């Protein structure tokens, strides 16, 4: 049963399927009930599953994550919506100090299968605290899995895999791509995307261009626009753990790596990948690993975001730098 779905609708369909197949799955967050979430990702779930399974919470992010931990300890599988990236910070203690560490602290006696859904990234002309890319904080925290889909097919499958994972999963949703469509086979019994794996989104032979989430589309456009060089685009999908096998295999073939993301470059996923690949693929590299990202500044006012976010030209400039050696 193939249907044309946006990323937002694909997550909704994935959530619905997860809730139908497991009565322990709950959806909770601010405005997720009657409103269906500010991006309508939980649209109609309240109507069909009721207030006990689609919980409109008080406006308290620490409370959302903290009570989700308690619900998970009781055997539930809460999927929390954190309304926007910049609103996550009040929940840091519950996420980093509690959720991430509980399995380890209990020597494996406790699983805490909480999913944190966080719409992230810029490009929608929002006011401050609505456009950030905080994924590196999460990837730095042991005990969390961090993933982000870049298209509707992956969104549909990855949210279901996040829900069934026994580990806490931070599920970053590329909010400026919520309305991008793709054909999704919602009737398929097996997943089309493995949450923990990277994928080659576009094959190429001269340089590997690594991206994830909202930047994958831009990377594909850049690859398309470059008629001189054959750019291979790898969609990372999982930021923690990173599927280095796929990344390294690609780099060994192409000999060059450019990493692009929306987050500031310092301390970002790109730097981590660059370091790792330099260690493991040193003799295959024709040039240093190049990072293309946002500046080490707060996310700017939206009238400046087109300069702040890496676009097609900035990515191609990064590719040029990789070929300058």
């Amino acid at each position, binding site marked *: 049963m193939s249907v044309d779905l946006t990323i937002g609708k694909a997550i909704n369909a994935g959530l619905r399927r997860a809730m139908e197949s497991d009565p322990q799955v709950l959806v909770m967050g601010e405005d997720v009930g009657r409103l269906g979430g500010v991006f309508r990702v939980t649209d109609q779930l309240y109507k069909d599953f009721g207030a*006990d399974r689609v919980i409109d*919470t*008080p406006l*308290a992010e*620490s*409370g959302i*994550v*903290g*009570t*989700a*931990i*308690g*619900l*998970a*300890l*009781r*055997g*539930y599988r*809460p999927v929390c919506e954190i309304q926007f990236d910049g609103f996550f910070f*009040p929940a840091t*203690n*519950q996420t980093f*100090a*509690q959720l991430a*560490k*509980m*399995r*380890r*602290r*209990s*020597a*494996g*006696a*406790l*699983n805490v299968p909480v999913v944190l859904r966080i719409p992230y990234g810029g490009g929608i002309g929002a006011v401050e605290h609505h456009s950030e890319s905080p994924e590196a904080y999460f990837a730095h925290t*042991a*005990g969390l*899995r961090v993933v982000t889909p870049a298209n509707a097919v992956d969104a549909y499958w990855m949210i279901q895999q996040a829900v069934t*994972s*026994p*580990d806490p999963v931070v599920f970053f949703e590329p909010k400026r791509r919520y309305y991008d469509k793709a054909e999704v086979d919602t009737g398929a019994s097996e997943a089309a995307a493995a949450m*923990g794996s990277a994928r080659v989104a576009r094959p190429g032979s001269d340089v590997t261009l690594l991206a994830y989430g909202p930047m994958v589309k831009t990377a594909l456009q850049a690859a398309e626009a470059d008629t001189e060089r054959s750019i291979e685009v790898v969609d990372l999908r999982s930021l*923690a*753990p*990173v*599927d*280095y*096998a796929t990344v390294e295999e690609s780099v060994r073939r192409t000999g060059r790596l450019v990493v692009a993301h929306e987050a500031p470059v310092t301390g970002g996923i790109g730097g981590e990948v660059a370091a790792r690949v330099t260690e493991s693929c040193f003799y295959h590299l024709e040039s240093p690993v190049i990072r293309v990202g946002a500046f080490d500044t707060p996310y700017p006012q939206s009238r400046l975001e087109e300069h702040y976010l890496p676009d097609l030209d900035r990515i191609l400039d990064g590719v040029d730098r990789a070929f300058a050696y």
Partner: protein
Amino acid sequence: MSDNTAHGEPELVQLLAPDGELHDDPDYPLDISAEEIRGLYRDLVLVRRVDTEAVALQRQGELGLWASLLGQEAAQIGSARALRPQDTAFPSYREHGVAWARGVAPKELLGLFRGVTNGGWDPAEYGLHLYTIVIGSQTLHATGYAMGVQRDGATGEDGSAVIAYFGDGASSQGDTSEAFTFAAVNNAPVVFFCQNNQWAISEPPDRQTRVPLYRRAAGFGFPGVRIDGNDVLASLAVTRKALQQAREGQGPMLIEAFTYRMGAHTTNDDPTRYRASAELEEWKAKDPILRLRTHMQTAGIAGDDFFTEVEDEADRLGERLRAECRSLPDPDPLDIFHEVYAEPNTQIDLQRAEFADYLASFDDAGAEGGR
């Protein structure tokens, strides 16, 4: 002192006065046998001995740290003995009496403070969650868990309830307020048990609040009550009622146990820098163990033989604990990588393999006669 100030001793529920005299409280009737009272006394003495031994073990370098419960035995034993097997408690890090009452072996408590475990017991087995160090965090876990109990339909007269332990310091944390909010709007079957032991490390209650803590509950829409936290019978009676109301669908309740931390915050703390010795003397007169003993003697609930017997048992417990503590083995170095994730994790697997090789290289070096 007036009920309007936070820091004196306002009206509080008390069944057993410091002089050992027993009073009835019509709101909190307590149906208790002489046998049960002897059991409570035994709990109080043995838990105090666990604490005393642990402080000594820390001084001898066997524990990295210990958070003493001295003075808070009655609040913990009374409330925890009100729990049923199917109930679940979410402690902070000083709840050794609660752990005792839930059946967790004292040596398990030492593991965390000795640094051989990060937790120490299976929470599901005992209905006692792991100690929580970041104060107030567990109030939300308890509330969420109670929301789960509610969804399971596990409430009702013979059902389950949840209790969250925290201190006066934790009452200032946002998480505690958020837990109150979530519990109230969901009518969750959770009892908030605040041990106001008067000192959050060096900070007295007037650095935490301008109203008595139990009165916070009113603003969230559920009842709050202050009890004499050094009175094990009041603690038992009030907690038992609060838990029963919670499991029967009447929602949360806040119990503020007005007590005193007679020891240091932890073995790293020096309370002589911030509190007067006269204050300690004043609270010693309200000692939870002495008053129960006085009552038992006066009421003929136990004779000298019983008290000697309990002392002997405490001596044996202390001896055993010392031996058990010293025999807790250091974990295997590769334990660092265990149980971080339930699912395979390539990054951790890789690091574990590299570290295992690194460790093995020392064995090889040893086999070759070293360098």
